């Protein structure tokens, strides 16, 4: 199978973007992406669009909204969906498009508009990302699922609320340095620990933001990539795992089996292991999710995710820098956009183009980890400066 490169990246500013519609946000990202590589839309052969929620974005057939607005038709374009992992599904579909030889130049776009509905409605819609028939009717919410995971993790491994808060402090620290981030504000451990309880033990600062935003990447075959860019970044490994719809059906509540499986596939395909990863973005929809991700991705042994962040090992200069773009926590989590934005960030890091204070020095291999729902889907992608 042919090699696939990321040749262009772009994204909109994340936040409460009442100034822009879904299609305008998508356009912002697409424009930045094409300008990044100096490609005209006319040269792009195919497109994949990720929008996670029809109900939040008021968009049935969102792919048509985007293709029409940017003037892409009649060329191929379709939409993919896997809740919060939708963006990574789009990256995967884009990779398949290129690797199969169907197209040489494919645009991958993620866009989501979440702030047009009141928070209780958003809570309602997101709660249904789990088992909408058998868990959600009890009043389960999205933070509720991760709170159940957090309680189990704390009981089994002694993970503390201060360790959860340390994730938030780190991600806000880096988010403050990212001009595209929704909440560019550092927070203290005390502030995080004293914020109100959303779903015990998770407090306000353990939860990611509800944001609007879009991101785009341009994928190319080896032949075309070499023409467009001297040093493209290569998408070297892809993994996709799935897990039970009901959280109750997981044998171990302290791990996401889908993440473990996705990581195994991606490491295998890329021919690397967790120790070779120089920079990672992981799915920190809640602080506990980042700690569980460290363990599921093999950055530390099971149960040692809490101490890893407490010892500042996931800061730049530590064992493995994680979410130095602010993560979902501070950069924001427009759900369908996140996976594409993760690819943007890792590409930026491997090119050495991240903003001052948040560039991992000389990063050669990077990883993205994106979870759908509470582990029904998980995608892991490995990127490298070298193609193998």
């Amino acid at each position, binding site marked *: 199978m042919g090699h696939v490169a990321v040749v262009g990246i772009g994204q909109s500013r994340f936040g409460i973007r009442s100034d822009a519609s879904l299609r305008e946000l998508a356009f912002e990202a697409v424009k930045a992406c094409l300008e990044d590589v100096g490609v005209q839309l006319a040269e792009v052969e195919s497109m994949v669009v990720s929008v996670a929620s029809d109900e939040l974005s008021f968009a049935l057939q969102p792919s048509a909204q985007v293709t029409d607005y940017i003037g892409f038709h009649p060329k191929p374009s379709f939409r993919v969906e896997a809740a919060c992992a939708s963006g990574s599904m789009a990256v995967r579909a884009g990779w398949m498009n290129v690797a199969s030889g169907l197209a040489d130049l494919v645009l991958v776009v993620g866009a989501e508009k979440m702030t047009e509905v009141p928070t209780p409605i958003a809570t309602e819609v997101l709660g249904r990302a789990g088992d909408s028939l058998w868990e959600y*009717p*009890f009043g*389960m*919410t999205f933070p*509720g699922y991760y709170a*159940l995971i957090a309680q*189990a993790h704390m009981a089994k491994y002694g993970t503390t609320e201060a360790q959860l808060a340390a994730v938030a402090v780190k991600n806000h620290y880096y988010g403050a340095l990212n001009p595209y981030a929704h909440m560019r504000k550092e927070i203290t451990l005390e502030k995080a620990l004293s914020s109100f309880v959303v*779903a015990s033990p998770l407090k306000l600062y353990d939860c990611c933001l509800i944001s609007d935003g879009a991101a785009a990447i341009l994928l190319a075959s080896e032949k075309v990539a070499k023409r467009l860019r001297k040093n493209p970044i290569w998408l070297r490994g892809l993994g996709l795992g799935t897990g039970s719809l009901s959280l*109750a059906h997981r044998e171990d509540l302290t791990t996401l089996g889908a993440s473990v499986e996705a990581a195994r596939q991606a490491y295998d395909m890329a021919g690397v292991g967790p120790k070779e990863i120089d920079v990672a973005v992981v799915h920190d929809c809640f602080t506990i999710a980042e700690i569980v991700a460290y363990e599921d991705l093999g950055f530390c042994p099971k149960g040692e995710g809490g101490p890893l962040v407490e010892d500042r090992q996931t800061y730049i200069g530590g064992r493995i820098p994680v979410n130095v773009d602010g993560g979902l926590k501070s950069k924001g989590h427009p759900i369908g956009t996140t996976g594409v934005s993760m690819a943007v960030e890792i590409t930026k890091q491997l090119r050495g183009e991240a903003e001052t204070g948040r560039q991992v020095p000389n990063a050669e291999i990077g990883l993205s980890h994106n979870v759908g729902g509470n582990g029904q889907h998980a995608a892991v992608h490995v990127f490298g400066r070298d193609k193998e």
Partner: protein
Amino acid sequence: MSEAVYGAKCTACGAVSYPRHLVCPKCRGEAFQPAEIGGEGVVLTYTDVYALAIDYDVRYLRLAIVELDGGLRVTGQLLDEEPKLGKRVRTTVGVVRETAGKAIYGLQFVPA
């Protein structure tokens, strides 16, 4: 109270699944009989959800995943003023939500 919650018992291997699947998760069997879900078990994890979705006018909801004796794991509302992981509880069936004036019944857990 005559309300009950039913899962599905595989006629081939006897494993009970809840909610039911099209195919038995244990033996891939495809024939089932209804099986009442309930009894005693232990709390595996729980949370108090304060930021609630629409339809609720309580301050918080206490939700739990319980492993019933026999190994089946179920989600429900925990009605216990002194919740603890590992604590023994038993199931009851009650109104877990009211939406558009209609009561939705589901599993609740009380101290055993």
